[in-house]
């Protein structure tokens, strides 16, 4: 419930703010731009600045799945300090284990909440802290076995993929408006949304490919969701190829608007339906047990700190999208008006020349 309110609320607020102050084609007020910048910077700082702190079960799963003894972050409260080089740490689930802290230079006291970068020495079957990561952290991110620190990509990859869809549906809306009103301004808005959608689609593909390399071993695995984002990328590319192939402005706007409307359903299917119907590597695939950590109604699929951070990232990226869209539309409208003025003055000049030819230049020069 809380997850739905947070994430849904973040997206809805951004959508309302994207449309409301002055509409989508007018300059946004300064407070709006400052809010977007602050939210975006807060997302980046929280996504990379919050430390990861695991409990003993997740720590064990992570260290057992690896063949080395690379330290992992352990988060808990020091409940006992039997000797100078030893502490007993209690994690959030109440598990307690002794940890050797003799190599940690900082002084640790009982009652402190700490994150210790710790190795589990398999031969000696004991925990050894390598360094103190954080003392009394404000908030921590969970240690997710299989993802670990790579989980931070969630706050950049998922919003990018979401925006590639939102952009198509905004372009779809403008295309319907164009076909109903036949105003070139609506075509300018549709192109602006589609151009941004293509950029965010590329960003989602790149961030996903990098994540896949470090999580699944290869940049590209032809996972159903990778295949579907590739198809959406091709659909975006075809839209711009189609536009560039039509020299007549009116025809270009009409045909590309029809294309945007016709392809809206396939785009929806490729992103939200297809990856859930077949088995794959992404969470939410047919064999993963739920429809994905974000959309699943179960609360525990996303830790509370991650829910807040994810809602913030969806809000800030959607606001960034609206800002970019706003600038792109206004630029397009300025260009359109300039073209119209130039066409108008060219028409006047042509008329003037016709008059000169018809009645003679001397007559025209007279006051």
């Amino acid at each position, binding site marked *: 419930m809380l997850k739905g309110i947070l994430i849904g609320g973040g997206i809805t607020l951004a959508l309302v703010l994207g449309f409301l102050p002055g509409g989508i084609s007018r*300059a*946004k007020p300064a407070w709006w*731009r400052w809010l*977007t*910048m602050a939210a*975006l*910077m807060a997302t*980046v*700082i929280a*996504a*990379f*600045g919050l*430390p990861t702190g695991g409990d003993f079960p997740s720590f064990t799963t992570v260290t057992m799945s690896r063949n080395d003894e690379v330290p992992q972050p352990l988060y808990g409260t020091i409940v006992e300090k039997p000797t100078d080089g030893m502490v007993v740490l209690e994690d959030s689930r109440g598990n307690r284990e002794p940890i050797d802290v003799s190599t940690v230079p900082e002084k640790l006291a009982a009652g402190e909440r700490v994150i210790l*970068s710790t190795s589990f020495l398999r031969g000696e079957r004991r925990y050894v802290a390598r*360094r103190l990561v954080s003392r009394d952290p404000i908030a921590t991110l969970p240690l997710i076995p299989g993802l670990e*620190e790579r989980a931070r990509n969630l706050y950049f990859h998922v919003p990018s993929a979401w925006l590639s869809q939102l952009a198509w549906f905004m372009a779809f809306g403008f295309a319907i408006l164009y076909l109903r009103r036949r105003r070139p301004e609506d075509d300018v808005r549709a192109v602006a949304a589609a151009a941004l959608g293509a950029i965010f689609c590329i960003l989602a593909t790149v961030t996903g490919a990098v994540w896949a390399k470090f999580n699944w071993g290869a940049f590209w695995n032809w996972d159903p969701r990778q295949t579907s984002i590739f198809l959406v990328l091709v659909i975006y590319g075809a839209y711009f190829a189609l536009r560039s192939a039509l020299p007549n402005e009116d025809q270009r706007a009409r045909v590309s608007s029809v294309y945007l409307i016709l392809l809206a359903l396939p785009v929806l299917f490729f992103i939200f339906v297809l990856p859930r119907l077949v088995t794959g590597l992404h969470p939410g695939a047919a064999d993963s047990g739920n429809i994905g950590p974000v959309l699943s109604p179960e609360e525990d699929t996303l830790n509370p700190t991650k829910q807040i951070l994810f809602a913030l990232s969806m809000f800030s990226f959607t606001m*960034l999208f609206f*800002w*970019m869209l*706003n*600038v792109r539309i*206004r*630029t397009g409208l*300025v260009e359109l*008006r300039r073209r119209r003025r130039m066409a108008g003055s060219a028409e006047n000049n042509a008329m003037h020349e016709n008059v000169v030819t018809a009645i003679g230049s001397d007559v025209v020069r007279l006051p």
Partner: protein
Amino acid sequence: MQFLVDNSMYVALIVATLIFLGLVIYLNRIDARVRMLEREEAGR
């Protein structure tokens, strides 16, 4: 080198902050430029 390895998340934080800061500064500049063009048009 060990310092960078131990603090790799802070290195990522600084790089990401600079990228996004650059993006919003650039966006602000374009926004101001378009605003100026719109004002010029309105005063024409």
